[in-house]
């Protein structure tokens, strides 16, 4: 079979030429539609889910004010970026046994979520959090230009600072909790915990034993900045998480990756602070940038397990058990094998349909079970949708509420 040709180096270098051999006659929108339907068919066969288009009837959400007040929302970004063939496709099902076997049957699954923005993890996560395709520098620690979900949530619903938290990898995400927007911004954002910096502060001077938890910044394997933590992080550890440095380090020794550390922190935060809005950014999968496929697949399997652990933690915590909606979605995908401008799973540089088309899984309160939708939604629809569910207005977001979640 002839594959799409290498084109001149201008194009290959900039990763710009996109033609999938299997779908070479299709445009990007058609490919996105195809991907959505493939996921839908796969989930129907593998997890016994039904197509959402066949469902009618009233919303399962209860909009009573009391229910809204008690509602908890957890967002997990399944990062950084995984492809269908390693996840929601027949060849990938071995890598996501928990999501497929445990979570999907009790979820509403959106099979066709597209990201039309910049495919860098920080800027894409910022876009998810604002509902606007942000154009900030992916590698700079700058706040988003538009108000974040945390600011809408806290300002509109008059929630205290302890009610919105972000747990994020440390590579630049420390500004994700609060925008530069004048009418929101300072004072209305989320508190941000950077677990690796926390650990770095705790283990100062003896990092060797914990090196596997301090991996950072695969997006550019060229550049691995030193992770530093200090007094502020130690204070977070003791005052908020109620963990002694010794206990924290002892537990950290039992973990195998930065995302495991993030989930440990998330559970602790749920126990201690019970935030109503909790955002966890996973990042282990981005080891794919190193080009080692086995490590990429290992990370997908770990992330799959961690998502199930988070869902179990929701069931185990009385504050969360009956009133939590959990949304899991990648920030974007990765390049197709057949795209001559990329190098397969390794990167997300081509902007092709497969790197832009992902999925979202919704679980918990108000969510229909075992339904898969393949109508198009955008990643910037996340914030307005959560706003509609929780009762705040994402006034500056450019996305639209997802009808099937309302």
């Amino acid at each position, binding site marked *: 079979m002839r594959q799409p040709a290498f084109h*001149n*180096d201008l194009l290959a270098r900039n990763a710009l030429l996109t033609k999938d051999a299997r779908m070479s006659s299709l445009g*990007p929108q058609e490919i996105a539609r195809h991907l959505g339907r493939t996921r839908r068919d796969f989930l129907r066969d593998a997890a016994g889910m039904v197509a959402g288009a066949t469902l009618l009837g009233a919303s399962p959400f209860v909009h009573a004010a009391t229910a809204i007040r008690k509602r908890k929302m957890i967002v997990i970004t399944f990062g950084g970026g995984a492809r269908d063939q390693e996840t929601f496709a027949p060849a990938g099902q071995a890598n996501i046994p928990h999501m497929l076997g445990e979570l999907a049957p009790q979820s509403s699954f959106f099979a066709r979520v597209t990201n039309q923005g910049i495919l860098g993890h920080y800027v894409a996560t910022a876009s998810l959090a604002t509902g606007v395709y942000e154009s900030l520098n992916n590698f700079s620690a700058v706040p988003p230009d538009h108000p974040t979900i945390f600011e809408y949530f806290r300002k509109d619903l008059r929630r205290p600072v302890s009610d919105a938290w972000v747990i994020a990898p440390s590579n630049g995400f420390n500004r994700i909790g609060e925008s530069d927007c004048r009418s929101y911004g300072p004072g209305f954002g989320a508190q941000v915990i950077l677990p690796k910096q926390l650990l770095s502060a705790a283990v100062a001077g003896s990092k060797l034993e914990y090196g596997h938890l301090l991996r950072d*910044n695969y997006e*550019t394997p060229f550049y*691995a900045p030193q992770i530093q933590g200090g007094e502020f992080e130690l204070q977070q550890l003791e005052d908020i998480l109620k963990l002694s440095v010794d206990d924290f380090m002892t537990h950290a020794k039992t973990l195998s990756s930065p995302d495991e550390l993030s989930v440990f922190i998330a559970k602790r935060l749920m126990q201690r602070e019970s935030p109503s809005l909790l955002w966890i950014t996973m990042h282990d999968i981005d080891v794919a940038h190193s080009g*080692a496929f086995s490590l990429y697949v290992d990370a997908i399997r770990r992330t799959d397990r961690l998502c199930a652990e988070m869902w179990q933690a929701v069931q185990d915590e009385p504050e969360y058990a009956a009133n939590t909606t959990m949304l899991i979605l990648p920030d974007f995908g990765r390049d197709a094998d057949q795209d001559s401008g990329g190098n397969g799973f390794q990167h997300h540089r081509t902007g092709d349909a497969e790197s832009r088309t992902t999925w979202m899984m919704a679980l918990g309160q108000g969510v229909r079970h075992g339904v898969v939708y393949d109508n198009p939604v955008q990643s910037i629809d996340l914030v307005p949708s959560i706003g509609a569910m929780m009762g705040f207005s994402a006034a500056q977001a450019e996305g639209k509420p997802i009808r099937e979640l309302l």
Partner: protein
Amino acid sequence: MLPKELQADQFRAYPPEAKRLALAHVQAFQQLPLSFLAGLLGQLIEYDYKFPAERTTLDRELSILSSLSPAQTAEWFHGFSQVSLSSQLIRLDWVNQPALFLEQESAYLWTTHQMDAFSAAATGYGDHLNAVIGVEQLPVRRLGIAVIGQGVTSYDSSLFDNLRPHGTYFSRVRPDNGLELLLAAVEQRAKAHPVAYGHWYVDGGQVARQTSSLTTVSYSALAPVRDQLLKFMQGQIASPGMGPEQLRTNLARILPKDLGLDQGGEPVLDRFQVKLFTDGSGTQIFSTTFAQWAARESLRRAQPLTLLVRFAPRQRQKPMNELLSEVQSNSELDPLGSLIDADIGSYYHWINQQRLAGAEQSSFLAWFEGHSQALLVAPSLPRGVTSDSAMDIKGLLSLATD
């Protein structure tokens, strides 16, 4: 500056062969949109260090561009002319620093949401060019060989899953003397069809043996170069104000002599090898990534008639800071993980081979080194089937090349 203002003397700093070509085509350059031209110049300025196949392609492309009528130029480049660039980009010295321009252009296109439009323009241009550029008849059917799994004693899971639909899976291969037989066959092809940079042997570890008839690239042999580069990167990362984009820019400027690779070798190959480390991602730390990327880049650039890639065990995963800082250390290896890496690497080797001329007639052999499993894609063989016939490596080679 815009392309229409281009003057011949602006190419005076170009290397000799690149300058000669630029002067011959400056009038054509003046007609092209900057969003396209800077990329073309990015190719041209490297002309003196390109492989013969690349030079031939670029020669033809430039000749075609110079022969276009104004109406054809307008048609071919309509998409590119619709791409808007910032005044800051236009002011850059894109004639002498096209790589810097491309970096900034790429960021600008993403930021302004013009990447899809640019991609469509590039695809359209590629289609126009491919329709007229023509291809030469190959002297021999192209052959790719991937040897994977070095150091793995047993593996129970399935291999070559991605390749199986395209070829025949052999489950009873006699592995005796397999690597030597493959090397000998590749050398034989090189002697029978002598083409400059036409026959390659890439090894993710130490070469099985030296061979003068092949273009050889070895991860182990490049250890001193890699160590120098890692030291450079460590120094850069520790510099105040350094960020990933600046580091990438600085890496792109590294020349073979900066890494001690100008000791009477081949300048074209030396530069290629340095670029494997400075352009590649992960090639500096994982030998499996290096082997896969070297295969891709040699196919894309040199378009070899024969490419044998042997994967070797990579070091076990560690924190990136440690991986980058370990110079000449004896790291623990991960043979099983490396086998999985190499399995997908062999698939990408085949995909990249199929992007070249003669794809329909080309053959590809992937073999689990020292074991009885192999996958062969060849015009004469059925696809998606398993053969339980006992077969030695010579027999597989015979099927691949007959």
